[in-house]
C-alpha cells in the first residue's frame, strides 16, 4: 500500500519538474509544499509505529521506575506503600554494599574494554590482512562466540574452572597458585577472573568486527606511501592506521563499555554475586525480583540508568565520540 503511494508521488514530482516552466510560480510553490507535507505524513506513517513502540517499551517503564523509586514499596507488604521522596536513594548511596557493586562493575568494565580493544585489534588486523580463503574461515570462527548464548558461555567457562567438574586445575597445576584444591569461585579475585574471561571471549568478536570495518576505511595508498618512505610496521600502525580510524575505535569502545557496564548473565550463572562479585545489574535484580523491594530496586535501576547516561555524556563531551558516524551519516 504505502510503497504504491510513494511511487505515485515520485511520478508527480517528475511531472512537476518538467512542467514547472509554464506554470504560475505560486501554483508550483503550493503544489510543492503540498507534496512536502504529503511526504512528511507518509514518512511518519511508515516510521511512526516503530518509533512509538520503541519509546513505549523503554521510556514509559523508566519513568514508572523513577516514580516507584520515590515510594516505600514492598510487594510483601503492599498496604504499607508511602511516598518518601528521595529516601530510597539516600539509603542506597549510604550503603557500602552498593558502592562495592559499583566498584566491581567499573573494574569489570575497564578490564574487559582494555583487553578486548587489544585482542579485537589483533583479530581485526589478522582478518584484514588474511588471504581471502582464510578470511572466510576466520570470520566464521569468531562469529561462533558472537552467536552463542551468553549463559551457555558462562556455563562452559564455569565447568572448565569448577573444582569438581573442571580440568583447568589439572592442566595448569604447574603454575604457582594453581593446584587441584583451588576453588576459583570461593574468592573475589579468582571469580572475577573467570567472569571476565567469559565476557571477553563472548564479546571480543563484536568489537573486532567494528574495528575491521574501521580498518577498511584507512586509505591503502597512505599506508603504502608510509611503507615506501621506510616507516616500520609499528610506525605505520601508530601514525597512519590509528589516526585514520579514531572514530571507529571510539564508537567501538563506547558501545562495549556500555554493554560491559550492564553485565548480568555471567555473574548470575557463575557466582550469583557471592564473595563480593555482585554487579549493579545483579543488585537491582536481587532487590526487586528477589526481595520484592520495588521502591529500593527501582531506585537502583534509575541509578544504573543514570550511570549509563553519564558514560555516554563523558564519551561524547570529553572524548568527542561522534555517534553520527556510527549511524553512517
Amino acid at each position, binding site marked *: 500500500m504505502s510503497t504504491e503511494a510513494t*511511487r*505515485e508521488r*515520485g*511520478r508527480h514530482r517528475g511531472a512537476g519538474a518538467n512542467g514547472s516552466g509554464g506554470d504560475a510560480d505560486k501554483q508550483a510553490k503550493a503544489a510543492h509544499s503540498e507534496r512536502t507535507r504529503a*511526504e*512528511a505524513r*507518509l*514518512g*511518519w506513517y*511508515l*516510521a511512526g*509505529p*516503530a*518509533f512509538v*513502540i*520503541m519509546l513505549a*517499551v*523503554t521510556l514509559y*517503564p523508566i519513568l514508572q*521506575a523513577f516514580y*516507584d523509586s520515590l515510594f516505600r514499596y514492598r510487594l510483601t507488604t503492599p498496604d504499607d506503600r508511602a511516598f518518601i521522596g528521595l529516601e530510597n536513594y539516600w539509603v542506597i548511596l549510604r550503603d557500602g554494599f552498593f558502592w562495592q557493586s559499583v566498584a566491581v562493575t567499573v573494574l569489570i568494565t575497564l578490564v574487559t574494554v582494555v583487553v578486548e580493544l587489544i585482542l579485537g585489534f589483533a583479530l581485526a588486523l589478522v582478518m584484514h590482512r*588474511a588471504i581471502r580463503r582464510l578470511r572466510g574461515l576466520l*570470520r*566464521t*570462527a569468531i562469529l*561462533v562466540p*558472537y*552467536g*552463542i*548464548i*551468553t*549463559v*551457555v558461555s558462562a*556455563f562452559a*567457562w564455569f565447568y572448565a574452572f569448577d573444582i569438581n567438574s573442571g580440568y583447568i586445575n589439572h592442566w595448569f597445576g604447574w603454575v604457582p597458585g594453581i593446584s587441584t584444591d583451588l576453588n576459583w569461585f570461593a574468592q573475589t579475585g579468582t571469580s572475577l577472573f573467570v567472569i571476565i574471561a567469559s565476557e571477553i*571471549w563472548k564479546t571480543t*568478536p563484536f568489537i573486532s568486527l*567494528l574495528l*575491521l570495518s*574501521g580498518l577498511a576505511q584507512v586509505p591503502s595508498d597512505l599506508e603504502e606511501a608510509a611503507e615506501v618512505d621506510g616507516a616500520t610496521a609499528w610506525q605505520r600502525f601508530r601514525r597512519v592506521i590509528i589516526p585514520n580510524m579514531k*572514530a571507529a575505535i571510539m*564508537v*567501538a569502545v563506547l*558501545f562495549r563499555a556500555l554493554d560491559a557496564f*550492564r553485565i548480568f548473565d555471567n555473574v*548470575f550463572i557463575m557466582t550469583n554475586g557471592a564473595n563480593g562479585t555482585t554487579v549493579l*545489574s545483579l543488585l537491582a*535484580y536481587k532487590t526487586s*525480583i528477589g526481595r520484592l523491594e*520495588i521502591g529500593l*530496586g527501582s531506585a537502583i*535501576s534509575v541509578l*544504573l*540508568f543514570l550511570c*549509563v547516561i553519564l558514560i*555516554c555524556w563523558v564519551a561524547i563531551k570529553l572524548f568527542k565520540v561522534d555517534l553520527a*558516524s*556510527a*549511524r*553512517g551519516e
Partner: protein
Amino acid sequence: MTGTLTGRQRFWWAVIAVVVLVWALFPVVSIFATSFKLPSQLNLGLFWPKTWSTSNYEQILVGDAQTLFLSSLRNSIGISLIATAIAVVLATLAAYAIGRLEFPGKRLILTAALGVSIFPAISIVTPLFNLWRNIGLYDTWLGLIIPYLSLTLPISIWTLAAFFRQIPWELEQAAQVDGATNWQAFRKAIVPLAAPGVFTTALIAFFIAWNDFVYGISLTSTDRARPVPAALAFFTGASQFEEPTGAISAAAVVVTIPVVILVLLFQRQIVAGLTQGAVKG
C-alpha cells in the same frame, strides 16, 4: 595480500589460523565434551570423556528433564521468532521511510534507536515485573515479546537504514520507463536488492532475542513462557545430591548447534550487517 605466499608466510598464516580457531572454539568444544561425560566421570579432571555416553541427551530429550527443556525450547523459538518478525516488519517500514523520503524527524528516529539500544534492560525490569503481575502478562509469551522489542527494534532500524541507503532507488523508475507496472518495478528491481538486508537484519535480531537472559529470568516463573537461557539456570540434578552439569551441558550444546549452522551458512551476510549498522565513515 592476494598473490602467492612464500613458504614462511604460509607457515605463519597457518599458525595464526590455528590460534584463532582454538581461541574461538575452545569453550564450545569444552562444553561439548562435558555433555558426553557420565556423572561418575565428571570429577576426573579430564577434558574428553573416558567413555562417550549419550545419557545426558536422553535426560533432556526423553527423560525427566524433558518437560523443562523442551518447553523452554518451544518458548524460546516462538517468542524470539515473533519478536524478530514484528521488529523486522516495523523496522523495514521505518528504514524505508528514512532511506527514501524527506521528512522532519528522521534524525530523531535514528537517535531514539541509538538511545534505546544502549538502554540497560535491568532498569526497566522492575516496573515491568510489577505491571505485568497486575495486568496478567507475567509469565506469558506476550509479556516477553513486548520487552524483546526494545532489544530487536533499534538494531533492526539501524541495520536496515544502513542497508537501504545503498539501494539505487532510480532502478525502480528505470524499470517503469521500460514499461513495468508499479508493482512489477518494485518486485523485480527493489525487492531483490532489499531482501538480503532484511534477511540479515532478521538473523541478527533473532540472535539478540535468543540470547536474552535478564527479561527471561525476571518476567517468567514456570515453563509456560520460560526461555532456554533462564531454564538452564533452573536445571537440577537427577537426585538432589547430583549436580546437573551433564544435563545443562547437553542442553547448551543442543541450543548452540543452530547458531553454529546459521553462522556457517551466513557468515558473510552477518558480518556485513553487523558492520554496516555500526560504523560507517
